[in-house]
């Protein structure tokens, strides 16, 4: 069981203490060229979460390798590097350049970038090309905006991914109270936070059942209880995103809350909870539809 940050939701160099409270630090997605990101405003709050259209602001792989990565390597926390591109070759190149860097524990393939087709074929293609370019463990980060996420996960598995990170944000829109124009300069943006939780949980559940791959679960986790549900759905590790903005102490808090939840469940250690949501219920009476329906 590891607690990570979600990519793009923590800068380990400006907040090293928070990064060290995690089991591993995941970088913001690095692209081949530097990107300034989208014009502001690029965040907005909604009732049960937030929207962002940061637009993958990052220094680009060259500067990342020369300036950022050496400093991340000195933090004393495992480093996962998230990479993103606009064509399959971009992913291959990025993985190739990270392959011999000892600071990198895992490469996360952000295949849910704008301008990257999100259909099973191209996810398989990207993972395959990345797989050929590096021996580092590969985690593939999936978008929930697809008719059958298990199919995408299976394509990633077939192409050689070692694990799955899920989910990325899903497109949402917020309008300004006075003008009724979009709050974000780009119009729509990625929805994250509590509103995303049931969607993310369903995605983890489906992909665990379909692939059995190790999963880093994320999407609206704010408490140990939420983390427990992701573990039960099939994610042995979880990542914290939006909650870090309101509570940078969340990694430590959630670790304690999770331990308490598991104590209360009385199932022994956390490993016994992984995938528990998939377990067949104990007795025959519980699978009779009548008994399930008329519960009192």
């Amino acid at each position: 069981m590891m607690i990570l940050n979600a990519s793009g939701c923590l800068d380990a160099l400006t907040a090293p203490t928070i990064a060290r409270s995690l089991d591993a630090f995941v970088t913001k997605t690095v692209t081949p060229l530097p990107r300034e990101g989208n014009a502001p405003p690029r965040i907005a709050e909604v009732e049960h979460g937030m929207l962002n259209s940061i637009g993958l602001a990052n220094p680009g792989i060259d500067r990342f390798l020369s300036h950022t990565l050496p400093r991340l390597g000195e933090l004393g926390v495992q480093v996962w590097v998230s990479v993103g591109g606009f064509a399959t070759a971009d992913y291959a190149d990025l993985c190739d350049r990270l392959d011999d860097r000892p600071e990198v524990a895992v490469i996360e393939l952000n295949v849910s970038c704008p301008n990257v087709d999100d259909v099973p074929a191209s996810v398989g293609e990207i993972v395959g090309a990345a797989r050929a370019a590096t021996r580092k463990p590969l985690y593939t980060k999936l978008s929930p905006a697809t008719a059958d996420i298990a199919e995408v996960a299976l394509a990633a598995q077939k192409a050689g991914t070692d694990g799955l990170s899920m989910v990325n944000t899903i497109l949402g829109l917020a309008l300004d109270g006075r003008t009724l124009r979009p709050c974000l300069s780009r119009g729509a943006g990625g929805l994250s936070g509590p509103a995303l939780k049931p969607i993310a949980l369903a995605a983890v559940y489906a992909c665990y059942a379909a692939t059995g791959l190790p999963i880093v679960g994320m999407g609206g986790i704010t408490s140990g209880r939420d983390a427990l549900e992701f573990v039960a759905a099939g994610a042995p590790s979880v990542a914290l995103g939006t909650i870090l903005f309101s509570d940078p102490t969340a990694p430590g808090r959630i670790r304690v809350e999770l331990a308490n939840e598991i104590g209360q469940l009385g199932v022994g250690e956390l490993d016994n909870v992984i995938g528990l949501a998939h377990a067949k219920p104990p007795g025959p009476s519980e699978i009779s539809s009548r008994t399930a329906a008329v519960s009192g």
Partner: protein
Amino acid sequence: MQRAQVEVTGSEQVGPYTLLHVARGGLDPGIPGQFFMLEAPGRPLPRPMSLCLAPPGELAFLIDAIGSGTRALCALQPGDELAILGPLGNGYRLDVERPLLVGGGIGVAPLPYLSESLGRPPAVLGFRSEGHAEAARLVPNAEVVIEPTYVTAAIPAGHDVLACGPEPMLAAVALLEPGAQLAWEAPMACGYGACYGCAVELDGELKRLCVEGPVLPAEAIAA
């Protein structure tokens, strides 16, 4: 930067604004112009607020209720609890010779604490109405102008200007006083460099206001 769960110790009306007092909870008040992220009850994200006053054992914030989050903060009652994070960002440089504080509207918020730190220098404050101008009582030695008069008309020459206020005011002050220190605003989700949401164009590049600012030299942001 630290985070604490603190108790509301008082909430007082200052014209249309609310002065919210909370227990200090072991937090450092920081440098004037720095800010805190205040949990806004019922909202997913916290709200950035400049420190307004640092009475012994307390921190106080002057809040304009303009939306859901600030309304929730202004509705807090003594005894309620909230989480606060700070101090954050870069405050005003205090090594100035002839300080003059300039504030507009809710932009007066950081000036009371700044005034204390600088030995109560003169100030020029602009407001939309007499009602709003009640907030001037929090700032010692202040001259008040009311719209349609603007603060820029009342800034005497030869001072080191430290300003906070709405963007058009800051832009006008920057033109008049290229050496001024200005406190800017941007939408912020985290306040500590994690989200990249608070991007502003500085020296021709998009940078994080919560990391580089919120107080910046006038020449950094081209109006």
